[in-house]
Every structure is written in structure tokens, then in C-alpha cells.
């Protein structure tokens, strides 16, 4: 939807503007060892941040105008009350973000294999509830083990495996 895109444009532009202003403040307040002629360490970033702030402001102002226009157009057209409003962010996306964060967090407690298995099973089931649970479980197990064999053993990536360490002493 165009209105949703304009909304995200406003949000992202505002966020980037706020980030730029914050970093500009940091660049003015950070200590420097600069002692000679030439550019100090924060001079270059400051120039970039000033330009970025101006550009973000331009995009923000334009996107706010367009968003307000979208809202005005929507109110002035005859829209049936029965049309369901789609949420700005799909629930599957939100759940996926939370699951990814939990998955990484679990590495240190359950280890790579177990947390990958749990994550894959839960995530694949949530993304498509029509798929049989046993299929998600079997494929999840295969993916977790295969990932460990390929990356952990073949490519020598050192994964945290606290449970395995516990069993093996």
C-alpha cells in the first residue's frame, strides 16, 4: 500500500535524521588528540553528517506532506467499513524478529545444534501452519546437524556447545 510506504518513509527518515543529529553531537563532544594543521578526526564525519541531516530533512518533510495527503485522500473517498485494514507490520515478521533474537541468545545456554533445531522447527511452523509439525521437526533436525557438520567440523567454526561440554566433561 502506498500509504504504508509513506508511513515507513516518515519513520525511517525521522530515525535517520535523529541518528545523524545524535552522531553530530557525539562528534562535537568526543575527545581528540589532534595537534597540528589539517583535518581533525571528526572533521570529515561532521561534514558528512551535516549533508546527511539536510537530505534527511528534505525527505522527511516531503514524505510527511505525502503521508498527510494520503490520509486526506483516504478520508475523502468512500471506503467500505467492511474492508479489513492490513497491519503495518505482519505478525509473522514481528514473531520472526523476536525468534531470531531469542535464537542467538540461546546459543550460550543450549548450544548451536539444539537452539538451531528449536528455532528451525518453530519458525518454519509459524511461517506456514499448514505444514505438518513432524515434517518441520525432521527437517529442523537435519538442518541443525548438517549445519554443525559443515561449519563446525569441516570449516572449523567454533560454536558454543555448553551442553555437549557438560556431557563430555
Amino acid at each position, binding site marked *: 500500500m502506498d500509504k504504508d510506504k509513506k508511513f515507513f518513509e516518515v519513520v525511517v527518515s525521522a530515525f535517520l535524521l535523529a541518528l545523524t543529529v545524535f552522531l553530530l553531537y557525539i562528534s562535537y563532544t568526543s575527545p581528540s588528540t589532534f595537534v597540528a594543521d589539517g583535518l581533525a578526526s571528526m572533521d570529515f564525519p561532521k561534514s558528512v553528517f551535516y549533508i546527511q541531516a539536510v537530505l534527511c530533512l528534505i525527505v522527511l518533510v516531503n514524505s510527511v506532506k505525502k503521508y498527510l495527503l494520503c490520509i486526506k485522500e483516504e478520508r475523502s473517498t468512500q471506503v467500505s467499513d467492511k474492508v479489513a485494514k492490513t497491519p503495518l507490520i505482519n505478525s*509473522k515478521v514481528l514473531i520472526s524478529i523476536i525468534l531470531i533474537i531469542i535464537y542467538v541468545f540461546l546459543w550460550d545456554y543450549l548450544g548451536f545444534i539444539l537452539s538451531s533445531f528449536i528455532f528451525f522447527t518453530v519458525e518454519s511452523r509459524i511461517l506456514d501452519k499448514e505444514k505438518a509439525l513432524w515434517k518441520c521437526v525432521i527437517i529442523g533436525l537435519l*538442518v541443525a546437524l548438517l549445519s554443525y557438520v559443515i561449519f563446525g567440523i569441516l*570449516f572449523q567454526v567454533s560454536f558454543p556447545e555448553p551442553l555437549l561440554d557438560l556431557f563430555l566433561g
Partner: protein
Amino acid sequence: MNDLSFIITHFFATLSDPLTMFMVLVGTFMGLVFGALPGLTATMAVALLIPLTFTLDPVTAIGMMLGAYVGGIAGGAVSATLLNIPGTPSAVVTTLDGYPMAKQGRGAEALGWAAFASGFGSLISWLVLVLLAPALAKVCVGFASPEYAALAFFGLTIIAAVSGKSIVKGLIGGMLGMTFAFVGLDPIWGDLRFTFGNMNLMSGISIMPALIGLYSIPQILLSCTEKNTVKNINLKLHNFVPSPKKIWKSKVNIIRSSIIGTIIGIIPATGGNIAAFMSYDQAKRFSKDPDSFGKGNPDGVIASEAANNGVCGGALVPLMTLGIPGDSVTAVLLGGLLIHGLTPGPALFVEHYDIVIGIFTTLLVATIMMVLLQLVGIKLFVRILSVPVNYLSAGLVILSIVGSYALRSNIFDVGLTIALGILGYFMARADYPVAPVVLGLVLGGMFEREVRLALRLSDGSLSIFFTRPVACVIVLIAFAVITSNIIKNLRTRHKINNNS
């Protein structure tokens, strides 16, 4: 004549050694796998192979590493095309047209072009390496800060070409990338910048976690609500091997992109991603249908892949002749050469000419094997598109997280990937292009460092960029590019205003 017979003898001696050919095949295959998996790079593939080559003779050992190099760079196109996740940094540009082609059911065609263009790019750079190596190295060894700064500046002007509909959003993205590049130690004074007391940020933001975060995670999140849209096409050979007629039609793009890649590769401390961006920009600029770029135009894939593989042979020029690595992979290769008792430089060509011929031969063989392996593997690769989205998305998350962790075994990189992934998702929803962010991250650090060094050399005078011929030419070309982009943009707006 004696020299020619010497060359021919050693060329065929290398070709007829079954162990060498087998090891080159293994190296190339491993490189392709590493290149195709996000988070694993050609550099890692070569580095992992070094210990395995200790007992091999120098030509076999270096040949295996070169196979991994060539395969690794080419392999990035597979995930870039099929999943919109660049397998290597140099495959970022391939996503721009490769992925749209895959969504249109032309994934096999895109991979076929990628394989062919990669092979051609490698071949052109191999010819340059073999015929012109010492002469070209002398030119590029004269490159100093003004030339590098000019090159980085020219690279940054390409933001306009990869910005899509909004150049302003592209510029913001590019500056955001430069902001990421500022994190860490100041290159001149050593001050810590934007680290907020976090030790992990002292070395800056690594490109691989940033790349995975900006490309992989948003793509996975966006596909959460999608169903499989690509039908399972019954693939035949003519579907993905480019026909001679199509190759002839794209000959200018192929040759130009290969040459750009070779030249960029010869310049030390550059790399495939800079070459790919520049080549893409030129292909779009000279195309009869520039608006089709970014929507599934094979010329975009050709430009990117020919250039990034063209870097391979080019990067070996300063390495073999002067001992200066052309990119990060050749830096690891330098270690490989030294371990096998070969010191790169002019003496190498005199004292170990037979080994040099052997190395050049293995590079040619690796190129051919890379193309054949890709063409043979296409039918398998494209099956990835048939995997149900729920399994694919969940698997890709695991692959992406592992990819960002694998580089330094540091969970902070994973956190960075997720944070950038969430930012990338919202940027995608707001129609902010991601390619400029990567461009800014890759080139921003180099641009700042070299500009500041150049200004110190000239006591703060900008004239240094115009008094040195090579730097002057590059800067003027960059300004010409900016001007043409502004004029094109104004014309488009004028047309839209007239139509409305």
C-alpha cells in the same frame, strides 16, 4: 623460439599432471561452495586451503588456491541471483538484476550468464596477466593517495546508478554507509570514533556482517508473507547456456566489463565490489534501455560478473611482479606463495620461470573448470527456488547467523547483523535502496583516509587532485558522471511534469 618452446613445454607439462588438475578442480569446487554461501568468502576458502597444500609441489598448491579464488568470486552469483543474498561482497551488484530475473522464472538464464561472464572476465584478465604483467605493474606502483582518493570518489558517484528511483534516498544511503565506515580508529590520528566504549567496534564494522545484515535478514523478513511464486520449469540446456547470437549481442558489455575488472584488479587494495559497481554503472550508461536495469536485465548480471572475475587475473599482476596484493584474497595468496618458497617480484620471473608458467596454466584451467562446474550445477542450484518458503526462510536465518559469526567467532558480529537487518527491513519498506549503503561502507573509509593523506601532502590544497595527471583524469570523469546524472534527472522530472 627457445623461450616459446620452454613456455609450451611447461604449459603442457602442467596440463598433463593429473594430481595438479585434480587439485585445481577440488579448489575450484570448494571456492564455488564458499562463494555461494553467505558469510563464507573466497578469502576464507584460500586461507583454509593453505595448510592442506603443505605437502604439494608449488604449482599444484598455488593452482589449488587459484581455483578457490576464481571459484569463490564466481560462486557469489548463485545466492545473489536465487536468494537476493550476495554470497561474497563482489556479488552485491549481481543481486540488482539477477534476483529480479529469478523472480521472473529466468534464474537459470541469469546463472548461465553469470557463469559465462565470470569465465570471460577471468579469461581476459588472464591474457592481460600473461602478456602485460611487468609493464602494467610499473604504472600502478606509482599510485599514491591522490589517485586512490580520486578512484574512491569516482566509485562513490556510482551511488546514482544504484539508487533506483530516488537519488536523494540513495545519497542518504551512501552517507549512512560512510557513517558505518567512520566507526573505529581514525586512520590518521588514531582517535576512537563512535565506539561508545565497546571494544568490538575498535576495529570498525566488518563488511560481511553488515552485508548479511543489510541483504539477508531484510530479504528473509520480507519473504515471511510470500508464497512460492516461481514455477518449477522443466529446464533444458538451451535455457541457461547463452546462445552465440546473444553473446555476440552483448559483446561490448562483456569486453568492457572484463577490462574494467582487470584494470581495477591491477590497482592494489581495491577489489571485486568496486569493479562490479563501476562496470554496472558503465553498462547502464551505455545501454539502449537503461531503465530496464534493476528489473531483470541480463546485461546487469554480465557487467557485474565479468568485472568481479576480471579482478582475479588483474590482482595477480601486482602480486606476481611486485609482491603487492591486489585485493584481500591475493593478500592471503601472498602468504601461500611465501610458504612454498616463492618470493613474488621480478626475480620470480627469472629464477622460477617454469613455476610462473605453471601458475598461469593452472589459472586458465581453473577458469574453464569454474565455468563448467557452474553450468553443470545450474539445474541443481535452481531447485533452491522450489523449496517451500517457510523451510527456506528458516534455513537462511541459520545460514546468515552462522555466516556473520564464522568470520571472527564473535557473537557481537551476530548482534550487529540482526540490528542492521532490522534497519534494512524498515529501509526496504520505506523504499530506501541498500546498495548505496554497501558502496558507502566499502569506499567511505578509503575515500576519507586517502583524501586526508593527500591533503597533508599538499598542505591542505585541493590542487593536488588536479596537478597529478591520473588523479585529475579520474576526478574529471567523476564530475562528468555527476553532471550527466543531474541532467538526466532534470530531464526526467521535466518529462513527468509535462505529462501530468
